[in-house]
Structures are given as C-alpha cells and as structure tokens.
C-alpha cells in the first residue's frame, strides 16, 4: 500500500510540475505588471493586460487569418486524401505500390524542412504573403492518405459490391459507403490537423510578410520580440489569447480530443 501512496504522490507532483508554466502565465496575465514577478495572493485581478495586448497588434485580423487557414487546409486535406486513399485501397493501377511508397516519403520529409526550396517555388508562383502559400504544401497529407487507406481497407467488400449492383459509380460508392464508415477517423484526423496548423510557426513566418496573411503564431512572435523592454504581463496576455481557442476547445471536448489522437495513433 505504501508504494501505491508513493506512486500517487509522484504522479500528482509530476502533474503539478506539468501545469506550472501555464498556471504561471495565467497568474501574470490577469494581474497588473507590478505583480508579474511577485506572488502576492491578495493582488488585484485585471483585464487591462488583455485590452493592451489586443490594442497593440491586429489580433482580430490574425484570428481571422488563422481560422481561414486551418479551415482551408482541412477542407483540402479531407478531399484530396479521401480520393487518394480510396484509389490506393480499392483500385489496382500500374505503379500503385511505387506511388504509395513515394507518398510515404512525406511522412519523414515534411514540408517544414524544405523551407528554402518551397519558398523559391512560392515566389515563382507569385503567391507569397497569401494564405494559399502557407497551406499548399500541407494539403496533400501523407499521414491522412495513410490513415484513410487503412480505414478504407477495413470496409467489407460486400457493401462495395452492393452499391455497385445498384448502379453506383466509383465516386458515388465512395460517398455512400466509405466516407460514412470512416467518420470517426475523419473527426480524429480533423482535430490533429487543426491543432497542428493552428500552432505552426516557422513556415508561415517565412512566407508571410504583412498583416494580410499573418497567422496568430507569427503575430504573437512579432509582438513579443520587441528590442524594447519586455513586458511580461502583456506578453502572457497575448500568449493566452493566441492559444485560447484551442485550449478552450480542448477543455470542453477533452474526451473527443484524447480519443481522436488515440485513434490517429492506432495503426
């Protein structure tokens, strides 16, 4: 029993340590600057840091950009990956195995490491500083194709044949049979994708120039990197604002988030 108690204490200590940074940020953001480094329990609460942060940079625009960006990427991913996964799962065509192997290359060599060349491509296409430039390299997701191919493969062939018998073509079968059955996987994938792209930073930093296409992460960095004195209260307020939506969504839909990531991990 002693080991049990010890274990519980250990687990709680780790949990406490893990929560500490966020708790620290929350404290600093909701208290005036004078208390940012002094932990006086009776310190007054304030929303003024959030107001200052909001006024100091066009966060509203950043929010819009980010929302549009993740939505656009997700929509494209769902369509493209579904089509490709369907092909790999159910159709035999010449060169299929090689094509699939080439797709898997992206699992290891992600667009994130090819920043120099992809930047050159975007420049040639003339779409720098647009949401499209940020999203295009990610729209064909090897992870998505892989996941959906696995899922489609488990769909019983009888259902497929039944649809065919009723005269449905390939695409209609896909829509009527495969997609509904893969719904949990779609939800899982969507959550993973949105999380990833909401938080992505380096590629958007390189490819965006102005407020037009700048997402929250880049906006936050520009805002807090001033060569002038660092004001932690305002920066932590901005930080919480930036990560707020995902955090709140996560707190509300904890089960779904966890289940989704779990499902995405099961191969």
């Amino acid at each position, binding site marked *: 029993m002693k080991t049990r108690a010890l274990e519980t204490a250990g687990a709680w200590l780790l949990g406490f340590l893990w929560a500490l940074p966020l708790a620290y940020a929350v404290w600093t953001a909701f208290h005036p600057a004078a208390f940012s480094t002094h932990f006086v329990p009776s310190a007054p609460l304030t929303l003024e840091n959030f107001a200052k942060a909001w006024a100091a940079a066009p966060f509203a625009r950043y929010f819009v950009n980010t929302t549009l960006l993740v939505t656009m990427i997700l929509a494209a991913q769902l369509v493209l990956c579904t089509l490709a996964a369907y092909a790999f799962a159910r159709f035999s065509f010449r060169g299929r195995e090689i094509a699939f192997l080439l797709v898997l290359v992206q699992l290891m060599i992600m667009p994130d490491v090819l920043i120099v060349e992809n930047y050159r491509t975007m*420049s040639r296409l*003339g779409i*720098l500083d647009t949401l499209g430039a940020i999203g295009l390299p990610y729209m064909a997701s090897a992870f998505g194709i892989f996941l959906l191919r696995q899922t489609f493969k488990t769909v019983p062939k009888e259902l497929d044949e039944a649809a065919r018998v009723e005269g449905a073509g390939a695409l209609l079968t896909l829509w009527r049979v495969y997609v509904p059955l893969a719904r949990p996987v779609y939800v899982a994938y969507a959550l993973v994708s949105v999380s990833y792209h909401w938080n992505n930073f380096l590629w958007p930093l390189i490819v965006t120039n102005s*407020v037009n296409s700048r997402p929250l992460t880049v906006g936050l960095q520009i805002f807090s990197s*001033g*060569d002038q004195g660092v004001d932690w209260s305002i920066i932590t307020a901005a930080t919480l604002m930036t990560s707020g939506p995902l955090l709140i969504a996560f707190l509300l839909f904890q089960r779904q988030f966890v289940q989704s990531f779990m499902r995405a991990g099961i191969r």
Partner: protein
Amino acid sequence: MSMKRIGRLIAAVLIAVLAQGAAPAAAQQPVDLSFYYPVAVGGPVTKIIDSFAADFQKENPGIRVKPIYAGTYQETIVKVLTALKSGEPPQMSVLLSTDMFTLIDEDAVIPFDDIATSVEDKAWLKSFFPAFMLNSQTGGKTWGIPFQRSTIVLYWNKEAFREAGLDPNKPPASWAEQIEYAKKLTKRDASGNVTRWGLKVPSSGFPYWLFQGFTTQNDVLLMNQAGTETYYDKLAVIEALQYWVDLSKVHKVMPPGIIEWGTTPKDFFERQTAMMWTTTGNLTNVKNNASFEFGVAMLPAGKRRGSPTGGGNFHIFKKSTPAQQAASLKFIKWITSPERAAAWGIDTGYVAVRPDAWETGTMKRYVAGFPAAAVARDQLQFAVAELSTHENQRVTKALNDGLQAALTGTKTPEQAMKDSQREAERILRPYRK
C-alpha cells in the same frame, strides 16, 4: 497692335493659364507609398508613426502613405529583402543604418543624390549631424537619411548612489571610476548572493553594438569605411574585450554569462542593477517607469570618450515609379523637418537627427526641463559609425559569436577575437578583389 492680334494674345494667355490648371488635374491619381519600419524602443511608437502618416496625408492629399510595423531591426531587413526578392518591395523603409551595404549589393535602393537634385535639396542632405551620416554614405553618395538614431548612454540610479555613499550627481567618468563605483554599488546578502549588481551591459542579440562602446573608448575602430575589412584581432580590441569580461570575472560587479537586452531596463526598474548601458532610445521608457531618481550620462572614457551611433535610416527603393520616388522624397523631407524631428525625439528618446531641430522652441523647453535628453546629442562629437560591412549579417554574427564565447568564458578574449577575425576575413575575401 490690331484687335485680332490682341485677341490672339489673350487667347494664348488664357490657354496657357488653363493648361497650367489642367496639368495638376491630370496628376490627380493618388501616389501610393508603403514603408516597413522597426520598433526597438519602449513606448507607443506605432501610434506615433501612424499619426505622422495621417498628418502627412492631410497636408498632401495626392499621396497615400501606409506604414507597416515589421518587428525588430533584424526582422525588418528580412521582411524587406523577402519582399524585394518576391518582386513586391515597398517604396521606402526604415532599416538599421548598417544594412546599407547589403541594400546596395542587392541593388535594392537608389542614392538620394539621384533625386535630391535641387539646390534646396542638396542643402537638406547636408543638414544632419555628421556622426549619423557615417553609416549613411559611401562611395561619395548618400544612401540613407537618418531618422531614428541613437547612441549608447549610461543610466544610473541616484538613490542607489546615495545609499552607497557616492555623490548622486556625479556619474563615473572613466573606466577606473566605472569599476570603483560599481564595486561600491554591488550589494550582497548574508550568504554571499548578489541582490543588486553594480552595472549591466547587455550582451544578447547584438553584443557588437555595446562592444563598440568599449572599443571606441579604447581608441580603435572595428572596420574600414568601405566595408571591406575588419580589425577584430587588433590588440586594442582584445584589450577592450578583456575589460568587459573582467567586469564580471575579476571585479564581480556584473552578472556572468549573457545579459538579455530586453530585460535590462526592467532589471534597472526592479533595482537589480544600479547602472546600465542601453540606448538613449529607451529614455522615455525609463522616465515613465523608474520609481526613483535617475541620471543619464555619456559613457565613461577609456583613452577617450566614445559610443557607436545606432538606429535606423530611411531608404528609397529602386523598384518604384519616378512619381513614387518623388513622393517618397517629399515624405522623408517632411518627417525629418526640424519640428517633426524634435517631436519624434521628445516622444521616443531618439536623438533628433539635425542640429536645427535642437534649436526649436519645443526642444529647447524640453531640454531645459529634462537635461538628460541632451546627453546623447552631446556625445555625438565622440561618436563613431556602427559596425557595417558587406555581408553585414554574417560578418557581424562572426563578431557576436566571439563576444558571447568570451563573455561566457568558453574562450579567452584573444582566442575569441582571433577566431572572429578569421571568419570575417573568409567572408569578406570576395569583396577585397
């Protein structure tokens, strides 16, 4: 003269007058200008810039000006070059004065001599402090116009001085005094941990700038005017670095390791340090946030007084129409006019970039009530150009790395500077042909 002739004369005059009126009407197309600018000092700088743009547009209805805040100096030059390489550069930009060679090498900007051709314009080009023109001219041409310029200054906490038994109105004037005062000001608690340092000289991000303070005071320059040679391993440079390192290693008046630029002013407000070296651009920030009496002084003299200049210049980009270039010139002349330069200096703490700005009524009254504002200007006579060469980013990084190695104790000052010099020579080799 016959009636017919008079008639024709009147008609000719009328047409001429009408033509004059028509010309500006044809040029009614608004000229669009945009410029990137960095902010490196505390305060509501973006608001001030935006209000400048609004005021200019009111006085010049045919021109639209869009200021774009781009982050730090580093981030701004990256953004500008990115925009340039993607074919859509801005028409003007405020960039660190040392980026001049980079901009020339990338064929991005035009010299002001090409468009500031009238007698009045030429006089305007000569109306700035010569110290600020050091980083703005090369090859006999003027490539940048000073806008938000600064020098390093020493801020000191008068309360702390009194506490340590020092005259609160007498800042250290020499290298020896700097050490002596800092020793008296460093406070330690019972277990020997420091609760207040005597001096903080930041070394994160761009330590080379602070370093130039030490080297200038030791009477040595780091590069040549043409930007093709560096002198990192000169004896006087190594000596200067040894002095800096010894502040924490030997005299223990400065924390060891790298000191963050961004948090040094806050450390000063929190009384974690009694003296600090930072830009005069932080003056308004310190005035607003220090809860104690403080002083501002020129940097202490080694063999002589000295500081590098710092800050940003305005540039006009090549890839813009003649109309845009003319409009840009108009804006830059407007924003550096004596009254506006004075207002900008007062609101931020930057040094108003031209002598006649200091003669305006507003500035004179401000200095009378707050003498600290004139310290940086007075230091200009001892100022030298900021480190600037071709391949500036790399050559500067070579020095920065060496400085940080010496300050963290992983290399001796001699070794660090020799390595930095070797690296810089390798980078600059193609430019010395």
